[in-house]
């Protein structure tokens, strides 16, 4: 094959970046329509994304049955391998050049066979998310070896079969923290504790407690990580009770920083694709299109992190939108309104609501939709949507668990009252009166891993 100096040029209808649940599911959906040329780029040697290195409870919502993480990844990979999608693994997208005035977009991809310049009419970003490092969390102390995130821990233990240490402390109390505990247990490591900065865990307290009993580790809640010590390898961590400032020392040679996901949206920096300062991913509308025409985004690049199956369904939804657009059914001049969240809520995704579109959808556990995440676990709160001084929606919750998605049934908002010139603000307010209930539909126990 002739090698050009500026790289091999490829021309497709849709380029998908990221071969995890969202990217593959989008490809599967796209491949149902004959004639559409799709290319998928994955930087790892194999498809499947994060589930490859996780363990239990995968596939509930999108496949309607349970798989293990690797099993789920294999299933998706088998399915997409049977389609006509042009799949490239070990292929890392390094730059997006957005096409101006209807010109095609371009993705620069690095592969072992050289550079590839992929021109595409539609682009789907499905690059996922990453956990904040110890450094990014600003945990003070020495800077020894032995500090990981769940992602690097699971890569080591589950993919490379390496045991990183002997005694580990888990920092963070999100769902993924429990996943880290399972991984540590699988690696044969002792867990010396799980640390939650908030008094209320960012996961289901019963699940956390059950696991702490089963794997025999204490849960320290309401404590801040004072400092890490150990000059060379981690030797321990000093914890500080937030209320009484009591100090506590935990002995460990490994630290796993879990949760605090950030979208891996580096590809959109320095492009016209707009970033949401709340979610730190691209801004999308309810069709999963970003502010740049024909560039879509789905999965955890929008909201680090949500469950894999939600990501998969978002991928599908984005693919449906791309198909509609491709077939010319898409109408551009839809009425839309921006939506944003106020503290203690972290973000709302999607950030732009297309009114005609959402009125036809029904929000449920089984479908992806507009969702918010809270920074802290909140008890007895009401989620309210406000447009100026008009209340569009309110719903009470006995408990909103932090860092996990809470669906907003936007079709139920009183849209007749909305002022389209202002963003709709979603607030979480204290709600003492009235019958609050644990809302199974939106904040229900969801045993899946991330």
């Amino acid at each position, binding site marked *: 094959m002739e*090698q*050009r*100096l*500026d*790289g091999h040029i490829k021309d497709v209808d849709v380029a998908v970046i990221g071969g995890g649940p969202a990217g593959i599911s989008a490809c599967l959906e796209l491949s149902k329509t004959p004639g559409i040329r799709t290319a998928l780029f994955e*930087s790892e040697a194999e498809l499947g994304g994060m589930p490859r290195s996780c363990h239990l409870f995968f596939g509930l919502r999108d496949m309607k049955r349970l798989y293990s993480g690797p099993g789920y990844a294999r299933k998706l990979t088998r399915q997409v391998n049977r389609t006509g999608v042009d799949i490239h693994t*070990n292929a*890392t997208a*390094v730059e997006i050049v957005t096409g101006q005035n209807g010109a095609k977009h371009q993705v*620069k991809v*690095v*592969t*072992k*066979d*050289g*550079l590839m310049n992929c021109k595409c009419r539609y682009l789907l970003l499905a690059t996922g998310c*990453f*956990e904040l*490092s*110890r*450094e*990014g969390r*600003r945990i*003070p*102390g*020495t*800077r*020894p*070896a*032995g500090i*990981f*995130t769940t*992602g*690097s821990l699971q*890569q*080591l233990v589950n*993919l*490379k079969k*390496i*045991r*990183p*240490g*002997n005694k580990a402390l888990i920092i963070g109390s999100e769902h993924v923290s429990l996943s880290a505990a399972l991984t540590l247990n699988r690696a044969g490591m002792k867990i010396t504790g799980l640390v939650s900065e908030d008094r209320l865990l960012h996961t289901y307290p019963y699940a956390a407690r059950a696991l702490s009993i089963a794997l025999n580790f204490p849960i320290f809640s309401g404590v801040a990580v*004072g*400092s890490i*010590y150990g*000059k*060379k*390898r981690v030797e321990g961590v000093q914890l500080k009770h937030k209320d009484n400032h009591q100090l506590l020392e935990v002995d460990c*040679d490994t630290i796993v920083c879990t949760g605090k996901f950030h979208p*891996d949206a*580096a590809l959109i*920096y*320095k492009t016209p694709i707009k970033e949401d300062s709340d979610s730190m991913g691209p801004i999308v509308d309810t069709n999963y299109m970003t502010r740049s025409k024909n560039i879509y985004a789905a999965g955890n690049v929008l909201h680090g992190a949500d469950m894999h199956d939600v990501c998969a369904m978002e991928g599908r939804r984005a693919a449906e939108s791309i198909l509609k657009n491709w077939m010319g059914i898409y109408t551009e001049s839809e009425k839309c309104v921006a939506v944003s969240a106020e503290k203690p809520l972290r973000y709302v995704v999607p950030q732009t609501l297309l009114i005609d579109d959402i009125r036809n959808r029904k929000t449920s556990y089984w479908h992806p939709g507009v969702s918010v995440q809270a920074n802290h676990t909140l008890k007895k709160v009401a989620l309210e949507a406000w447009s100026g001084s008009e209340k569009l929606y309110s719903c009470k919750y006995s408990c909103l668990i932090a860092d996990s998605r809470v669906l907003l049934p936007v079709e139920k908002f009183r849209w007749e009252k909305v002022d389209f010139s202002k963003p709709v603000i979603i607030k979480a307010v204290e709600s003492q009166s009235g019958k609050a209930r644990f809302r199974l539909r939106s904040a229900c126990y969801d045993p899946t891993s991330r």
Partner: protein
Amino acid sequence: MSKRPPERETDVVIVGAGIIGMSLARELTKYHVDVTVIDKEADVSMGISKTAGSLVYMGLFQALSLVIKDLGKGMDLEAETKTERMKMLWGGFREFDTIAHSLDIAHKHVGFLLIARNDFELEKIKQLEHLAQFVPGGTVRRVPREELFEMEPNITPEAIEGLYDSTGTISMFGPEYVIAVYENARENGAHVLFNTECLDIIEQRSGSHIVRTGDGTLKTRYIINCAGKYADKIADMADAGTGWNLVFYRSQALILDKKLEGIINNIVGIPPDAGKIDFIYPLGEGNLHVYGGYYDPIEDREFTDTTRDNFDDAISRMKQLVPCLSAEHIITSYVGVRTFNDKEFEENLIEHSPRNKNFINVLVRMPGFTPAPKIAEKVVGMLANEGLQLQRKENFKSSRTAIPRFRFLSDSERQRLIAQDKRYGRIICKCETVTEGEIVEAIRRGASTLQGVMFRARAGMGRCQRNWCGPKILEIMVKESRKTKESVTFKGEGFQVVTG
């Protein structure tokens, strides 16, 4: 039976593989001299050179540096600009471009903008302007308020006036500089022994020395003490002190995400308080480097822990300077320890041992990167005076090429590289766009630790801090250096990444 420790003979032993030690080693390799550098760490640039601000500077920044060092002591700063030290700084500064060019060190000339937010700071700026005219290398002028925001739109709106030096500062990456000098020195025949701690120095009747290390002994005539933070300990071993002690100051720096590239384009700062420093500068890779906060005297020279107070202080000061920056942008933080001698606080101390002139202490007051080549020349001259035969090598190789930096290559260069070696087509570190080829090359050139790979190839220095690429780099290191995974360390023995 234990193996008899190896014994080597060499002309000059340099203790410490930082910028001073390595520059001296490189200078000596220009002659037919057998030079051996020993360092207790696993790599070069593991002490002060690692954490010193990566700037080569004269002009306004040098003037500021004098003021910071004054620490309210009321020194005669003007006299300070006429010292021998200043001459060496100026010489080194002028030579840096040539060195950077021949050793292929990435560097960038950046402007330095000091801002005043009130009359008090304005007064300080005037003093600095006055002082700066005695320091060569700068092109200093006052900047009125309107122009200030044209230059740097993101600085604090409280700024009323600025002082700008357009020529006095060069930004580079310190460890990269040391590594470049090391590679070149080694190519020219210098021996560099890592993990080799100097344990004792025994003086012989002939005036020669025996250096006992953790890994065998060295017989040498000359010893140069470039041990930085540990210069006092080495001097004590040879009883070579002249009544000085080392004093240490620590400050915590922050590195911000490179997505902020362009937020500021010059080094920006406010005139320093005694004991406090505030400036932010753009690094070559696009990250911002924040030096904000304490300049604390410490007893324990190894106290490099980051602290909550230092974080809070640095963050609040960074926001005072550039309000759009936030704690969320921090990708990492570290503490640097600056070392001074208490005898000549404001001077370099480059002196023979009072007992034996073949032993030379080299204590450099910061900055060290700027004067390093001149200090090396001076020490070589001192050695010559003590009888070291300096016969020039005809085949001295003055140049070295850097590892290709995939991220900054053009498409055609990238394509050519991948065609030569497929490993340049596999991206390992996504945050910093580093390929397997670059990592392999770094290991081939002597990176024996994870940090060695980071400093040579930049892998793992991005926003995810090795959490995505760490396991992959580990795998490559195991394969390339034929180590077991349990023996791969972060920065030397004991820093095992995985214990198995």
